[in-house]
């Protein structure tokens, strides 16, 4: 029996923060077909795929008792652990790189990595309720901040630099791009692992659909902002969303908004890393908080290694291994769960 419970709105807020963070950080560093019109279709296809892969969980969750069966599946937990650990390392390395390059260029990377890895443990130890409340508290500021940056970037944009093929697309490339985007999102795993903490299971599918539509609009808005700001030069920009915020200059009032972006992004990443820690502990089914010492040790060591070896990290994060394991988890896990539950029901009969 789980004592810490969260509401469905808190679940979707957590997912949305994951989306904002992964999209705002990952966007420039992956092989999205960002330079062409395929990106628009990719976002839409990705949203449809997200909905499809989430649906089995929703069906399982509507029959609450089967959720516990998924939690007891050791093989699934092991795969989820590996997957979440990979995502956590990638998120923290990207965070360190961006922080090191933009916020504290003259500071040792240790001062960036160690505080966030240690302090997020405190939030994880406090439990999912605390993380959810934190997400709920932060989300208005995050949405407001991101919206301000997006809107101002549209006002500030030079539309003459828009690429010619901005509205041309091919289905094959778009599908591939959608898969790649999907592989960078860990929403499905987070959704699955947080379902048992939900208080209410009413209309969770409908709620996810609404969330997906909002997220899709958000993704398109972010891409649009990048398009109108950088045009075809987007591929050469290291941190596009950060650069958008930095480039905004409308009268003397709206300028240098990167501080807003950085503040929100650091707080958002804090929530995401704390959440990942918490979910990792759950997949290991360990009750003692001592496991966090091991998790943070591994995270700090690997983050430091990859931060100092940027080329290795670039190769690793975009490797076929990471892509494959992500796709397998995202597509296979829900259907494996369905099959497992179906078999259990048959055995009972």
């Amino acid at each position, binding site marked *: 029996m789980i004592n810490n419970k969260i509401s469905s709105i808190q679940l979707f807020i957590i997912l949305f923060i994951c989306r904002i963070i992964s999209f705002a950080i990952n966007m420039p560093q992956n092989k999205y077909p960002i330079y062409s019109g395929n990106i628009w279709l990719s976002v839409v296809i990705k949203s449809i795929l997200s909905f499809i892969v989430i649906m089995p969980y929703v069906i399982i969750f509507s029959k609450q008792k089967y959720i516990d069966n998924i939690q007891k599946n050791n093989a699934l937990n092991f795969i989820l652990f590996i997957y979440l650990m990979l995502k956590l390392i990638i998120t923290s390395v990207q965070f360190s790189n961006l922080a090191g390059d933009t916020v*504290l260029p003259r*500071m040792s990377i240790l001062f960036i990595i160690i505080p966030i890895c240690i302090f997020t443990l405190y939030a994880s130890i406090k439990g999912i309720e605390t993380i959810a409340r934190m997400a709920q508290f932060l989300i208005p500021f995050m949405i407001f901040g991101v919206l301000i940056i997006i809107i101002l970037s549209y006002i500030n944009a030079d539309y003459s630099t828009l690429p010619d093929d901005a509205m041309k697309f091919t289905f094959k490339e778009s599908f591939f791009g959608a898969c790649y985007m999907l592989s960078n999102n860990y929403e499905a795993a987070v959704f699955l692992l947080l379902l048992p903490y939900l208080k209410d299971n009413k209309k969770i599918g409908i709620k996810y659909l609404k969330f997906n539509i909002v997220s899709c609009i958000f993704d398109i808005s972010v891409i649009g902002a990048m398009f109108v700001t950088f045009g075809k030069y987007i591929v050469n920009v290291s941190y596009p969303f950060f650069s958008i915020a930095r480039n905004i200059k409308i009268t003397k009032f709206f300028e240098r908004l990167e501080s807003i972006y950085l503040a929100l992004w650091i707080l958002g990443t804090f929530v995401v890393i704390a959440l990942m820690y918490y979910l990792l502990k759950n997949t290991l089914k360990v009750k003692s908080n001592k496991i966090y010492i091991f998790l943070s040790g591994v995270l700090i060591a690997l983050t430091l290694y990859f931060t100092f070896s940027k080329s290795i990290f670039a190769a690793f994060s975009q490797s076929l291994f990471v892509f494959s394991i992500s796709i397998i988890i995202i597509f296979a896990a829900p259907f494996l769960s369905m099959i497992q539950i179906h078999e259990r029901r048959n055995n009972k009969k």
Partner: protein
Amino acid sequence: MFNHLKNKIKRFSDLNMNMGINSGENVDIHSIYTIPIDKNLEHNIENIQNDFKDCSDLIIRRINVHGTNMAVISFAGFYDKEVISLSVINPLLNADCKNKKLTTDFIEKNVLSIAETINTPYIDQIKTLIMSGFSALLIDGESSGLLLALQAFAYRSISESDNEVVLRGPREGFIEVLQMNMTLVRRRIKDSSLKLEMMQIGRKSRTFICIAYLSGVADMKTVKEVKKRLKNIRLDFIFESGYIEPYLEDNLFSIFPTVGITERPDTLCGKISEGRIGIMVDGTPSAIYVPYLFPEVFENSEDYYQRSIFGTMLRWIRIAALFISLYLPALYVALATFHQESLPPPILNLIITSSANTPFSLVFEALLMHIIYEIIREAGIRLPRPVGQAMGIVGALVIGESAVSVGLMGVPMVIIVALTAICSFVVTDIYEAVLFMRFMFIIAAGICGLYGIMILTALMLTSLCSLTSFNIPYLSPFAPFDLKSQRDMLVRVPWPFLKKTRNISNLAGARNEKDNK
């Protein structure tokens, strides 16, 4: 390490729980007293004299009424001599009762002209209540005594609270006498649903406390929990409500308070009307109340007395003041030290010019200025009022001005510290917590710039989100978010739209906690 500490605390609280009534458990005022009054008056007097041996303020006045020995027992300074002579001794000596037996009942009903008496068969109740200002009348041959409510000790008159001044609203503040404070509350809520329950806590001080709540509005589980926590207090002496505050907090080690405090009866009544539970302690000119949530630091009783739009505006000003008092010095240190590119060139020039002449780093300058300011403030509070004001002027004008002209401090830093100090007095409920966090933010900004500030903010938020006050999330109604409650939080809507939302038990967080149970 933390688990070890946690286990120690748990063992300690278990030990306390198991100590039972023999160790001096705090009891309801009307619960059982055990030692009966002896029929022999001399035995009773001896018993009391033995207990109060060497207590020079114990006064025993023996009288003989038509052959029956009696004694009026009280403590010096607790009663008015004239009143006791006129209401007790004179009526007794002049009573027309030659052929009647002088029983306690007879004297209570036919002789004494006192509004409030307690007829008790217990000598320990007499001992306890004479220390609270009652006088006792013991009669030879009677197994019961009379407690006479003749308290007339000197106390401060009701005056305006110094710490919670309002431009519009009542000018009454709580005083040190519990009974008067209870009257101030009762006068404002003339309804039978207002319950004022008395308890005594403190094994030696036997301090009276009053629990005030509205039955039917307050959550009875919370009322029960408050009583339970108060009964489990194992202190010998309670001289101020601050002694019991930690026992009402869910988290002892948090820097943020989860118990509210007010010196104004109208504020306490407002809180009680929202379903909160007020606790008044004898000898304390303020009342505490629970549950207390973080957003309440932005509220003031005056918000409800003036037009709603101004009430709303004042809340937003308080929110801004909190942010300024928390972040301004740290942001200045971070921007000027690490992120100069984010500052507009004119401001950057000003900072460079002023800091070029000062010998200290900005972070050291900020810390030093704040420490000096806090010392001046502390000295100003402790010193007699006229000297305190002079001290403030000396501190602000002489030291500040001299430090700048000599070149020890930069002008921008003096302005920032002054602005921060002013803003910190807007949200006084969490002054100490804000002060502590401000120092932490300055240090973090000095080490890691904006990154340090944001990481510390995240840590502070985690702490705030994990706190609860009687199982209600501390950040409620922001997290968990409750839209209906925003009518009296981010905005203060006019009363016709407000009245239905004013109940703390209806907050989203409170509902969630109930659901979980």
